C-alpha cells in the first residue's frame, strides 16, 4: 500500500536520535530550528519519490534485497520491533545536548505530524551523520572558501525507511534489518515459529532444526519467513521428500517422521522456503542453486 501521508500538510516536525544506552536503546528528541525542519521534510519527500520508483514487495527476513527497494512490512507486525514503539511514542524525552556525545548514536529520525493526529516517522542510520563529525568542512562565503571549525553533523539526502500508522515503507532493507534488530527478533521467535511449523507439518521432526535455528540467525530468518508467508501450509509429505532429494537436502525417515540429516538443517529450511532449486540444461549435468532473492513470476 503506497504512502498516503500528505507531506504538504505537516504542522509539526520533531527531530531526534537513537542512542545505545546501558539498558538497551533510547530515543531522545532534540530541538531544531525551521531550516533543519525544512531539510528533514525535504528528505522525506526524496524518500517517498525514491520509493515510488520501485514495485512494492513484502518484507521477508530471509530475503536478500537490493541496496534500494520498496519493501513493506506492517507497523503492527512481528518485524517492526522498536521502530513501531518509536512511531507511537508520545512526548519523547527531550535532550538538547544529545549530539555532544555522538559515539552511542546509531540513528536519527524525524517525526512529521499533521493536525489530524496522523504521523509519519522517518528513520536513517547514523553513518554519514556521525562520520562527518571530525572532518573539516569548507563553506563558500561570498566568493572565498572558509574552513568550518565547529563540530558539524551532516544530514543525508533521504531516509532508510518511513513509518505510517499501517506500514513501514523500507527504502534500504539493510538499514531496516539493523534498526529493527531483526536478528534478535527472529532468534527470540524460534520456539514459537517451530511450534507453528510443527502444527502445519506434523510429519516432520523439528528437534534438530530447533536446536540449529536457536544458534544460527540465518536459519532463524528462514524459519521466520516460512512462517510469516504461510509456506508450510498444505505441504505434502511425499512432495517434500522428493523436493529435498532433488535439491540435495538430505533427509531420513525415522518412525514415520521426516528429519533432516545433521548438517542439512539449513538446506531443509531452504527447501521449505523455496530457495533451493535444480536445473538441468546440459545433458547429464544437474545443477543445484540457492536463491538469495526470489520473486514469484
Amino acid at each position, binding site marked *: 500500500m503506497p504512502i498516503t501521508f500528505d507531506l504538504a500538510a505537516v504542522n509539526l*516536525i520533531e527531530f531526534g536520535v537513537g542512542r545505545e544506552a546501558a539498558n538497551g536503546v*533510547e530515543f531522545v528528541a532534540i530541538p531544531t530550528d*525551521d531550516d533543519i525542519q525544512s531539510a528533514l521534510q525535504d528528505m522525506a519527500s526524496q524518500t517517498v519519490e525514491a520509493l515510488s520508483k520501485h514495485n512494492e514487495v513484502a518484507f521477508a527476513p530471509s530475503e536478500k534485497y537490493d541496496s534500494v527497494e520498496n519493501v513493506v512490512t506492517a507497523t503492527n507486525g512481528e518485524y517492526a520491533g522498536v521502530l513501531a*514503539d518509536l512511531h507511537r511514542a*508520545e*512526548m*519523547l524525552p527531550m535532550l538538547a545536548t544529545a549530539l555532544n556525545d555522538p559515539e552511542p548514536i546509531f540513528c536519527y529520525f524525524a517525526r512529521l505530524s499533521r493536525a489530524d493526529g496522523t504521523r509519519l516517522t522517518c528513520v536513517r542510520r547514523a553513518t554519514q551523520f556521525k562520520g562527518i563529525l571530525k572532518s573539516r568542512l569548507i563553506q563558500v562565503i561570498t566568493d572565498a572558501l572558509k574552513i568550518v571549525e565547529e563540530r558539524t553533523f551532516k544530514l543525508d539526502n533521504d531516509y532508510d525507511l518511513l513509518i505510517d500508522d499501517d506500514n513501514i515503507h523500507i527504502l534500504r532493507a539493510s538499514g531496516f534489518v539493523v534498526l529493527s534488530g531483526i536478528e534478535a527478533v527472529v532468534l527470540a521467535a524460534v520456539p514459537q515459529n517451530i511450534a507453528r511449523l510443527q502444527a502445519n507439518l506434523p510429519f516432520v521432526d523439528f528437534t534438530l532444526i530447533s536446536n540449529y535455528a536457536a544458534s544460527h540467525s540465518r536459519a532463524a530468518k528462514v524459519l521466520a519467513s516460512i512462517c510469516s508467508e504461510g509456506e508450510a501450509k498444505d505441504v505434502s509429505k511425499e512432495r517434500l521428500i522428493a523436493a529435498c532429494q532433488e535439491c540435495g537436502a538430505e533427509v531420513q525417515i525415522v518412525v514415520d517422521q521426516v528429519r533432516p540429516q545433521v548438517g542439512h538443517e539449513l538446506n531443509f529450511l531452504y527447501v521449505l522456503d523455496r530457495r533451493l532449486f535444480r536445473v538441468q540444461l546440459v545433458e547429464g549435468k544437474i545443477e543445484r542453486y540457492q536463491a538469495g532473492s526470489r520473486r514469484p513470476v
Partner: protein
Amino acid sequence: MGTKQKHEGLSLARLIMVLGSISPLFILWAIRGTCQVPTAPCQAMNATGQMPKESCLVPNLYFVIVCCAFIVLPNAFLLLRRWTAHKHRDAREIVVGKAEDHRDHLLVYLFAMLLPFYASNLTNWREFSATAVAVCFIVFLFWSCSLHYMNLLFAIMGYRIFTIYPPDDGNPLSGRESVVLITRRATVFSGERIPSYRLSNTVFWED
C-alpha cells in the same frame, strides 16, 4: 527505557525567566526606594529650621533605573524567547494524560516572594544585603525547581498554567516527565494533543 535524568537545558534562559517572574517585586521596590524619611516632627527640623533631606542608601534615580531594568529586561527576554520559538517553529505536540490546573502556585509565589520582601527594610546596607542574598536564594530555588513559569505577566495576558502528565500508554519509549503548559484554555482534557511552542524543555506555550 528513556532518559533517567532530567535534562532541563537552557539554564541561562531559565535564570532570566526566573528574574522575570520576580519583576513585581522590583516594581514594589522601585516605588518604595531606599530612602529613609524622617519620622518624628521634632527630629524633622534641623538647627537652621529647614526640613532635612531624605537619607538614601542608593540615589533614587539609580535605584529606579536598576529596578526598571530588572522589570523590563527579563520580561522582554521572555517575549523574545517566545518569538524565537515561534519564528523557528520550535514546537512539539503535548499529549495530555492528566492535567492539573496550578493556579495555587501563584498563591505560593505571592507568599514566598512578594509579601516577605515587600516588607523588608532597604534603608541600610546590612538589611539591603541580607534582602539581596535572600532574593538570590529564592531565585536559585525557583531556577533549580524549574518554576520559571511563575510570572504574573502570564496571568495579566489571560493565560493559565497547567501541569501536563503524559499518558501511560505502555510504550517504553514514551516520555514520563510532566511538562508545564501555558495556555488560554480554561480546561485541558485527557487525550488532547496540543501543539505548543517551547520556552524551555519543560515549559511550553500555546498561542
